[in-house]
């Protein structure tokens, strides 16, 4: 056994503070009692995103269609607009974008 092995292998163990286990259990109980985190409303976001995509496709296709079809599409367009506004997709997209940017920024600052 080398001198280095002797030094590195002979570390005196430290003893945990007497209240360590109690403190951990207090934190664990707090954790267990905490309400579950609010889940991100992926369902609503996806519905809104699908509706937005539909609106964009329809808006692009309208000039290419006849007057009757265009009128029918306009009604669907109103319905989709209602879905988008009521699902609050703009707010969620804004929130998701803001979260993404803040995570990127903090990662950039820590590296």
């Amino acid at each position, binding site marked *: 056994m080398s001198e*280095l092995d002797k030094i590195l*292998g002979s570390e005196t*163990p*430290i003893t945990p503070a007497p209240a*360590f*286990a109690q403190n*951990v*259990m207090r*934190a*664990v109980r707090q954790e267990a009692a905490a309400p579950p985190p609010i889940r991100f409303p992926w369902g609503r976001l996806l519905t809104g995103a699908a509706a937005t995509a539909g609106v964009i496709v329809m808006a692009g296709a309208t000039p290419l269609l006849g007057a009757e079809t265009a009128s029918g599409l306009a009604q669907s367009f109103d319905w989709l607009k209602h879905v988008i506004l009521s699902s609050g997709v703009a707010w969620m997209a804004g929130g998701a974008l803001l979260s993404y940017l803040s995570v990127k920024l903090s990662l950039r600052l820590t590296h």
Partner: protein
Amino acid sequence: MNTVPGHDPDSADVQRVLDGDINAYEGIVKRWQGPIINLAYRFCREQGLAEEIAQDVFLKAFKSLKGWRGESRFSSWLFALALNMCRSRMRRLRPVLRPIEEAERIAGTGQPDADYETAEESEIVRRLVLQLPRKYREAIVVFYFHDQSVPEAAATLKIPEGTLKARLHRGRELLRKKIGARPGLTLSLGVA
């Protein structure tokens, strides 16, 4: 850690916790608090900080208990989790070799005069390990933490045993160079 053959107290406690008995987690904490605090201490060399890291480890382990599937030993899973926690904490608190005076103070606590110099040098060498690049530092710290057991250290580090041996070899070389650069240490350690 000794266990009665055929009875794994960790598995039993984990199952009880997963069944809703949070108090069963105390058995796990009491069984592993010493090893986890000591592992963290070897990375930071401050008892207060080591206990903070260990508390975070136990909290994280509690939240991720479902993630332990019993394929590996509970201790291996817990040590790997502790190592990750040490990595993330030490990334923020870059390991700095404290002034020699602090190593002297630590080594001198309760030590008889004859052992004083050896204890001081040992403390300096352990602090020099923390200045090695991460992969060598981890290999050396974990290997000696596991009483020089290659299989156990490789399991904690999640690397093949051959890779660990190579890192230990290179890590020791780098460490010897660092020791050699300190004139006072070179002679008494017999490291040329």
